[in-house]
């Protein structure tokens, strides 16, 4: 009973917060059109933070529901470029305001099988982080190879701290609330990839530095 009450409260709180966020973001969209460039930069920061709250809410709800078996990955046919472009569009304004260019390299006809909603949330979050740490460039490339889809997100920033790379297998232990970055985004990406099982293979993520660009290199591998 207590659990189901908690669930109801959780779900309706998230619902209300998202509705409020919706209004905030839409108002910001309206306002920013008529503003001089400087102010619109400030607005895009607010906008970005609002969308970060939203992503966190979605991740929280999704993780809770996955844990309680109320959510299962829904694997469907997905045109890869659609998902990537949508995720990029969501943070386009933020990237522009930070003078970061995002390049996409993905075959227009590539179709793969995965949960588009959940993977989108994960990828959007990773892109958002990359924008924060990139110097001026992010490159996203998507390839299908040996029965796996690999989504690369590389940036030209300083890269992941060495400690993060070492602990790559244990994201859960690294969710630390004392530091600014909780690593929740990576933990979420890991969890979502892990839920994708196809033909006896399991999805996963990899972190590296200086792979394709000088900075951090994130890869999500989906079977």
């Amino acid at each position, binding site marked *: 009973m207590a659990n189901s009450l908690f669930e109801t409260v959780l*779900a309706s709180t*998230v*619902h209300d917060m*998202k*509705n409020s*966020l*919706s*209004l*905030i*973001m*839409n108002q910001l*969209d*309206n306002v920013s059109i008529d503003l001089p460039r400087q102010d619109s930069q400030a607005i895009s920061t607010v*906008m970005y933070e*609002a*969308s970060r709250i*939203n992503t966190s809410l*979605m991740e929280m*709800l*999704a993780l809770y*529901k996955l844990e309680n*078996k*109320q*959510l*299962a990955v*829904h*694997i*469907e*046919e997905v*045109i890869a470029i*659609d998902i990537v*472009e*949508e995720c990029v*569009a*969501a943070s*386009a*304004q933020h990237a522009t305001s930070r003078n970061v260019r995002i390049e996409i390299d993905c075959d*227009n*006809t590539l*179709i793969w*099988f995965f949960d588009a*909603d959940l993977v989108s949330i994960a990828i959007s979050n990773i892109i958002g982080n990359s924008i924060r740490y990139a110097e001026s460039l992010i490159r996203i490339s998507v390839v299908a190879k040996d029965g796996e889809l690999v989504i690369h997100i590389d940036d030209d920033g300083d890269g992941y701290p060495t400690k993060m790379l070492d602990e790559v297998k244990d994201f859960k232990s690294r969710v630390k609330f004392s530091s600014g970055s909780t690593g929740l985004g990576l933990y979420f990406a890991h969890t979502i990839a892990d839920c994708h099982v*196809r033909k006896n293979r399991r999805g996963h993520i990899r972190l590296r530095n200086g792979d394709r660009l000088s900075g951090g290199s994130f890869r999500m591998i989906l079977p």
Partner: protein
Amino acid sequence: MYNRQLTKSRILIIDDFSQFRLTLIGMLKLQGAVDIDQAANAVNAVNLCAKNRYDIIFCDYNLGAGQDGQQLLEELHERSLMSRGSLFMMVTAEMISAQVIGLLEYRPDAYLAKPFAYEQFRTRLDRLLARTEPLKVIYQALDNGLIDEAKALCDQVQQREPTTRFSCQRIKSEIFEQQQDFDAAQAIYEAIIKEQPLLWTMVGMGKFLFNTGRYQEALGHFQEMKVSFPNQVSVIDWIAYCLEKMDKIEESEKALDEAIKISPKSVTRQSHLGEIAESLGHYDTAQKAYSRTIQEGQHSCMVTAEHYQRYYDNSRKAVEDMSARQRSRVVADTELIAKKMERRFSNNPTALASNLCALATFFKSVDRKEKSTGFLGKLSKTLEHPECRVSEENFAFIEESLQSLSSSDGNEKSIAKITTRMKDFKQAIETEKKQDEIAREINQQGLFLLKQNQSQQAMDKFREAIDIMPENPNYLLNAAQMILLDDNMRDDSKLMTEARSWMQRINLKPRDQRRPLYMMLRGRLPNG
């Protein structure tokens, strides 16, 4: 920035929140949309859709009081108020759970998660329009009833635009199913399942087993699917259908109950549970199911007078085993539902009559004599109405009810009046029966002539049968298929108008055996 396709599109926005509607309109106008209507609730939306054909519909899942977005989508489908190829976008604040609740056939084309920034919205919509554009030629062919051409187009489009592969295969499998070419549909599912067992192909495979009478195998298939596709309600619905066909009614009831726990808002599912529970004598379950049917469907045309009658009847049987407290709650509920029912059917004496009778009986059984007498009085008045009809089944029901009601004081006058009037109905029923026999005979002659390849004469016979019994689905289907399956006749616009009017008169329940034929013929009508 302008999207030319959007400029040409007729758009409807449904949201109870005027601020969101305005925001969306603003975003759409920025992209070049001009023709935009809006509705604040499902009732207004249905009315608009009955008048106009929209190319794109944006609908918020949560519409406040009344129907939600999913219920609205089901109603638009059931009443054919949406064109093939129109886009339905469900806007939702919690996209994560919304996608499992609906029937597979009634899914929106896309979910749009709130909140969204303008740029994100634009990209999404551009994509979606670009992805569906190549399919339009196929929908056009289908709208013109050119089935073979549509099939060929599926292959051509897929070859030209590799990204449309799955959409094309899916449309093709639906065409095959409509034509009852189950083997061809199965071949499509099987090929895709080898690559990846997608939900629609797996359900399709189960439907194939079901449609070809292999209920046991179908059941096994859907039960396996329940594990690999958890929480998909349509899978559980199919398990219930299989069990019902296998005469395992009690287990079927359990499956439906499980589906309803996940998704209680579907009118079709609730009334199905009511039907099954009643047949098992589980009046308590049936009463609750019909109560939900009425509640969820109070703004929907999918709820009929019969649903109300089933509710009163099952309530009467259910209260016998109830505690005093439960009982008084059911009585209070029934009073409320009765009020709404009277308002709803105030212009429909035929629907009203059987319901008033059920109410009089119900209130007598719970010792509310004055209420019972009141409804009996209303029944007597309603039966006097010149447009009131009583079917054979309802005639028997009223007769039986009168017997139990006659023991109450104060009912004598009404009962005497009703008894006299019932003689008229008896006569009417007998006349109709005779006419029905005549019509059936004429229909038989038509079928015989058809076998002799005398189609013109057969057609005349079917028309004659329809003149006598204008609502009989068999005669209507026979006549309509003569026209709709003949390419020469289909070129005659006068005949097509006639066929359309016949098809519109046909009213079949969701699992009626004639429904596949009906759906196939409907597919051959221009604009469905």
